């Protein structure tokens, strides 16, 4: 017995068909709700910056950056559909989140230790430029 494969047929494609309406995701009401949250968060950041002064600026900085992380999470989860596509994309997103945190941690010593200060806390300035003769 012999089997004869057809001489010409298209190579099987491993690309999925493009998305259709069944992949529409959240409703427009959800999108509007997320937009409202983002707008409120932006206003909150702005107001915190205006209200907190003096020694409270570090608390303000913490609140503002936390609000930024919350906003970015909402945009990623709902607008970028990560909440619905997480099982398909976690292998890409998770490592890059780890790398981002690692990169910022690696920079911490340089951000905290200032090599241009002497032990007394005085700034070590470079000497004035040489005057041309």
């Amino acid at each position, binding site marked *: *017995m*012999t089997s*004869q*494969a*057809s001489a010409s*047929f*298209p190579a*099987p*494609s*491993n*690309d*999925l068909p*493009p*998305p*259709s*309406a069944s*992949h*529409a*995701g959240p*409703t*427009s009401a959800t*999108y509007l709700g997320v*937009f409202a949250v*983002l*707008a409120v968060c*932006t206003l909150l*950041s*702005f107001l915190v*910056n205006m209200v907190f002064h003096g020694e409270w600026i570090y608390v*303000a*900085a913490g609140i*503002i*950056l936390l*609000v*930024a992380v919350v*906003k*970015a999470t909402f*945009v*990623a989860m709902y*607008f*970028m559909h990560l909440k619905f*596509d997480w099982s*398909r*994309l976690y292998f*890409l*997103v998770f490592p*890059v989140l780890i*790398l*981002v945190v690692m*990169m*910022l941690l690696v*920079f911490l010593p340089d*951000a*905290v230790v*200032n090599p241009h200060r002497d032990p007394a*806390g005085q*700034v070590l300035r470079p000497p*004035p*430029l040489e*005057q041309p003769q």
Partner: protein
Amino acid sequence: MSHAVVEPRMTASPMGLPLYNGKLALWFFLITEVMFFTGLIGTYIVLRNGTPTPSDPWPKPHEVGLIEWVGAFNTFVLICSSLTVVLAHHALAHERVRPAVLYIALTLALGSLFLVVKAFEYKAKFDHGVLPGHVPERLEGQEGIRFVARVQEELEALVQDSRYSSELRQEAGKLLAQVKAQALSPKQVNQRIVGSEHVSKAYRVADGWEGEGLLEKVEREGGHLVHVIPYGNLWASCYFTMTGFHALHVLGGLVVFALILILALLGRFGTQHLAMVELAGLYWHFVDIVWIFLFPLLYLV
């Protein structure tokens, strides 16, 4: 005898990711861009926190012409554009082509508005001389001489400019006379411009002079005077690099939306472009996320 014919598989292979190629490729691209901006932002954090001192703090927003509410407005504009692009995708997914086109047009308009506001902000920096390498920081030797020469030039122009009030021109004239007579050191000139209350410790001169600087009075009348901004050049480098690269990314996104609108004008846009709209939207949301972090880091914190 029987012949077994291998039928070609016309459906997607069960191997591989449950994700179409375009989406996978775009997410790969986005994570590389995340690392790109992480490098820039990480560098900014190191430079900002690791270099300045209590006597030479990092410039405050008003010292370099940053207006917080303008940045907040731009953030709101980008958030609105993220909403419109996701509504465009939603409409197209439900085969409502015309609303989708309108939402894309709105996204393009909002993105363009963001760039216009950015252009005005850049112009303000250019007008105030806040550019990398243009902000005076060292007042010793030749640098001090150059600084005083710049001040003299600006004061001479100010004194003859009828747009300013006569009181301001008189006061500027007094300082100009002292500068021409070389009666003041570069640090003293800077202190007269910035004011005794606002001059940073490293540039303070204990010569008994106290008062409001000329700079505030000039700025109240819409002008500018060159003065020392500690770490101003570093600030300008960071600001223009980060916001410049972000603006280029915004421009790239706007090009894609413009292409979609051209397709729509030619009558060729339809539900078959759902993937294109989804991918353009993903890219646009990423651009929005970058600004969500840039705005507080540059304008607020």
